[in-house]
């Protein structure tokens, strides 16, 4: 069930667009903001409020890389795996992250602290390699900087 606050936020988005359906992505973003990910129930709730079928909403949700259809950790690590970071050594960062967290891409640490995801170019290629943790961008990284960075996120 959507909470009152989720419902209100979604209704507000609906009022801004000419068709209810057009608020689909915004609605998914709102649910994810509140719950960190979008469950099957979340899909059904969004479908109800937008008068769409759950399949239709799911087809939108699964298209986008950053709508999560599985539970994720408290902090999301987006590691840039694109070309400038490739040349500048993102694979060493990846190895070190796997060492420190003991998880693979797409997985969450057992304590629910981190989810590790590869991400296309973060647009900071002149400071490659780079990664983001939640809203924070880290650039010009060497593997030995990672431990201290992770320590900031509890």
């Amino acid at each position: 069930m959507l909470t009152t606050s989720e419902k209100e936020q979604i209704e507000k988005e609906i009022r801004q667009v000419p068709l209810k359906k057009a608020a689909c992505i915004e609605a998914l973003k709102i649910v994810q903001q509140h719950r960190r990910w979008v469950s099957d129930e979340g899909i059904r709730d969004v479908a109800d409020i937008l008068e769409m079928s759950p399949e239709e909403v799911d087809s939108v949700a699964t298209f986008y890389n950053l709508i999560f259809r599985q539970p994720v950790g408290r902090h999301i690590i987006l590691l840039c795996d694109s070309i400038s970071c490739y040349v500048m050594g993102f694979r060493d960062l990846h190895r070190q992250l796997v060492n420190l967290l003991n998880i693979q891409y797409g997985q969450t640490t057992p304590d629910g602290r981190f989810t590790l995801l590869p991400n296309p170019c973060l647009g900071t290629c002149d400071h490659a390699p780079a990664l983001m943790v939640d809203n924070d961008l880290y650039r010009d990284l060497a593997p030995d900087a990672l431990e201290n960075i992770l320590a900031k996120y509890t």
Partner: protein
Amino acid sequence: MERPLTQHITFPPLGLRQYEAVGGYQAARKAIRHMTPQEVTAVVKESNLKGRGGAGFSTGMKWSFVPMDVSGPKYLVANADEMEPGTFKDRWLLEGNPHQLIEGMIVSAFAIQATESFVFLRWAYKTAAAEVRKAIAEAYEAGYLGQDILGSGYSLEMHLHTGVGRYMCGEETALLNSLEGKRATPRAKPPFPQVSGLFGKPTIVNNVETLSCIPHIINKGAMWFQSLSHTADGGTKIYGVSGKVNKPGAWELPMGVTVRELIEEHAGGMKNGYRFRGALPGGASTDFLVEEHMEVKMDFAGVAAAGSRLGTGTMVVLDDRTCPVGFVHNLEHFFAQESCGFCTPCREGLPWTEKLLWAIEQGQGRDEDLALLASHAALLGPGNTFCALAPGAMEPLQSALKYFRDDFERHIKEKKCPYGDHIH
């Protein structure tokens, strides 16, 4: 040398009053109060500004396709998706001077008489999102946005839309689908968005750098803008270089500087111990340029004559210690992952290409694989797929097969990567 686009870039960026103090919003005032929409479009056309999003189409020409006599809303969208690997110029403009973009959008929207506008910004650009949001609020407060702008009778709303991550959102018709809440798959053209775009209404989509040029063209004129350039394409260009160079970065320079000037002068040459082998001149979906292209002028015609594309003008350098097969594999991995899956050649062909490259890289390639890769490069080329993603993906591959063939052959013959490390 004049650097109109970047001269007032600061971190954090200028607020509205500071931006006004350096001449900001003069172009918006001039256009809205003293020019007709047709006059604005004419100046932009005359300036020879070509779109900075990759395709290089004349901006004024594009605007002139908007039917001006239709009723109902028209839209202007700033394409701030910037997910092309190796491209980082729009981030600089968004974070460093968001008011310049907003002013460019106001003038552009006025030219096509749009009543609604959007900044389509990618998820990962958190700082840019905060700065653009703040700048839009300031522009509303100062009366540059909203109803009856500067008492002129012209009204424009502006919204910030943050994406949820997909390279295809940068393709202009896919972007419109995404703004409508749908999957970001491209639309058939015609009709072109200029005639039937967002919610079926006339829509212009322009790149952030393109829009940021507009206030300067209005302030100083078409001839001035043309004079900034070394070539026929008007204006300055934000060029960038990344890879194993001494000073990776981005610089605003006259349109048409040479590859050599960019790499040796601005990027400070190759890092000690590394030799230049090639470069993608304008992001992941452009063909390699190599040593023999050092004197090529980086404008649309110059790079095209050398068999590649200016693209976004931000260059990725391949050095002699990075495996070209691994480099191209990384690119094809990206394209295969980001294919929207809408048309079969791209959906099936890109993962196949990626697998072939991965096998070669790991020393499991077969002699016939190179012919197979070449046939993919042709079959996924222009005209065979629904949008430009797949042909773009084939550009680095086909040129790598041409310029770095020895490397591909050595992998197959020696059954290993001559460069070592390939663990992902």
